[in-house]
């Protein structure tokens, strides 16, 4: 046996939480872990060990990295990977070029059998910071309260110091709270779970108008996977669609990437999120970036059927996520956050419980 590796004990603790407390793996269950070559294999091995200790039937799939996200991965995925995914009882995805929104992912989620947890691109250090060291019992009441207030609002406006100014209507669309309880379906009835510390929903698409400024990070997969941005990317939004892109070099590459994908649905806004994970830092990995405390995030392109309340996905070849830092959010004119800090009187105590 070699010497213990970096964060070995903390990793074991985080893995234990994921398997026992989060996915609640039972003996005999089929537990699947997928991981591509751009992610740290130690995370996969650590959760596999815990599941094996619980007498699950464990398969870790380590595979060729596709050059993009979502359905853009379909043609590059080994056929046995596609066949394996929908057959799991529980699936943790560590892929850096994630399988989320790909065809096998859709099949898995629609089956309602697979409990899916997306930890795409989350390496050992991030897993320890964003899962293992978070006190979920303290954080979850805060997340639940924010989600409830948002769900009850009619109108939402989000601004930030970089020039973001966008508003939209809610019309009681479901608001999903990511609490790391992956043993039960989300409020939309889907067993699709994501790293905790995020609140996500699809606003009424046609009502989304204004300007979105990504000043944190932008991840579009393939050549549009920028990580953290050097210059902000500004999107003019009209009725839920991108009407214009401006900014520096990254904006130009992004514009070209969208043109190359040649899919009109890649210009449509799919969802918005709050980021409230106390361990998250802006590091260029979307799954972490979109949870930086006080940010908001927009997803563009593929939209899951369970967010929009229409029962059908907005199918698109891929999905892009961009991060707006230090946001001020108002719900029907009432401030919830101001430049990334929680200011609503019903929330400040709950936020301070987790050190925010």
């Amino acid at each position, binding site marked *: 046996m070699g010497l213990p590796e970096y964060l070995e004990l903390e990793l074991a603790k985080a893995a234990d939480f994921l398997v026992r407390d989060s996915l609640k793996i039972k003996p005999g269950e089929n537990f699947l872990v997928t991981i591509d070559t751009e992610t740290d294999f130690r995370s996969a091995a650590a959760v596999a060990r815990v599941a094996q200790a619980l007498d699950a039937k464990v398969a870790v*799939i*380590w*595979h*060729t990295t596709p050059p993009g996200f979502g359905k853009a991965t379909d043609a590059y*995925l080994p056929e046995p*990977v596609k066949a394996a995914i929908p057959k*799991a009882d529980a699936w943790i995805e560590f892929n850096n070029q994630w399988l989320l929104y790909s065809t096998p992912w859709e099949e898995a989620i629609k089956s309602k059998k697979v409990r899916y947890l997306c930890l795409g691109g989350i390496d050992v250090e991030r897993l320890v910071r964003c899962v293992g060291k978070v006190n979920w019992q303290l954080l979850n009441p805060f997340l639940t309260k924010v989600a409830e207030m948002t769900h009850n609002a009619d109108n939402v406006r989000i601004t930030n110091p970089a020039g973001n100014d966008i508003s939209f209507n809610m019309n009681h669309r479901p608001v999903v709270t990511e609490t790391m309880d992956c043993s039960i379906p989300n409020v939309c009835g889907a067993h699709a779970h994501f790293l905790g510390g995020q609140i996500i929903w699809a606003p009424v698409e046609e009502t989304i108008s204004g300007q979105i400024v990504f000043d944190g990070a932008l991840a579009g997969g393939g050549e549009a996977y920028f990580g953290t941005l050097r210059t902000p990317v500004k999107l003019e939004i009209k009725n839920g669609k991108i009407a214009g892109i401006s900014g520096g070099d990254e904006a130009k590459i992004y514009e070209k990437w969208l043109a190359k994908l040649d899919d009109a649905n890649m210009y449509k806004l799919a969802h918005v999120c709050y980021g409230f994970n106390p361990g998250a830092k802006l590091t260029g990995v979307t799954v972490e970036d979109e949870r930086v405390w006080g940010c908001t995030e927009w997803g563009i392109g593929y939209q899951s059927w369970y967010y929009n309340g229409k029962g059908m996905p907005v199918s698109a070849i891929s999905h892009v996520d961009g991060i707006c830092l230090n946001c001020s959010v108002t719900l029907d004119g009432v401030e919830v956050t101001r430049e990334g800090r929680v200011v609503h009187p019903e929330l400040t105590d709950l936020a301070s419980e987790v050190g925010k």
Partner: protein
Amino acid sequence: MELGKTANVVINKLCKVKSRESVLITIDGLEEFRVAEEIAKAAEAADAKVMVAWHSTPRGYGKVADPYLPEPLWAAIPNTDVWIELNNQWLLYSTPWDNAMKPAVEGKGKVRYMFLGGLNVDQIVRCVGRIDIDTQAELQEILTEMTLKGRKMRITTPAGTDVYFENDPKRPVRNELFADVPGPHFLLGQIAWAPIEESINGTIVYDGSYSGGAEADLGILRTPVRVTVKNGKAVEFSGGLEAEAVKKWLHKLNDPNMYYAAHVCYGFNPGARLSGLCTEDERVWGCTEWGFGQQGPAFKAKGINAISHADGICLNSSIWIDGRQLLDKGKFTDPQLAILAKKLGRE
């Protein structure tokens, strides 16, 4: 470095992997992951779509493994172009293996399966990486031809094996080297076939090793296991403690088909040593090996359906085909084969 070269031989020379093919590598928790990793690298370099499945180790071989295998693995196996199995507790003869191999053998499936079960770094380097593949192919080709043409055979060993049987000219003699067409293929250095089951009579003495999965994985034998065979069926086991263990295990499996001889093989891998690992042992130069129980579809024989499969090794065999001696206590008596053997570093 040697492992890198070996992986390259597996992917490019043996499995002949083509660009954009799906390559599945399965490996269980008892096996050395480096082997899977290096083969995956070679496949990626060959522009294949690669998947390594590292999974819970089943408690036994063949269909005994079925309840322990993760469902995603069941689904993955029949859906690949190439499957390289490195498992220690192998999936060979399990139901997902059947699901992949039956259509492949019938010309309806695509999976090219290469069995390298249980080989660690040292073993795969010795038994694949360091072999002169072209000379090996030449030797195996001649041996296969001679066996195909033969009808009445006899095998003896210094330990007391003396068994007679007849071959069916309509059945294939499997020359294990390449995995270039759909169906099952095994580590090089083995020639295997199913004789006419009822014609097998005599005594088989396992003096090398015995492998039946789980508690019947006896490895290298301390005392020979003597099996009396009548009309293809094992009717008596004698020897020491290990013979008793085999008897007990077969009794526990409670499957009468586990007593029937499924196939016989020659072992001619110049790198193989008796190590206790069946995959390697059954290829030890000059041995013969008998498998009992499940009979793979590729033998195009009776198709014995059994819950598991057990293999035993008889060292330093002497072989006669239609009265003509081919091998004397593990050494070739045929001059043409002796020259090729020498080229491969053996006698």
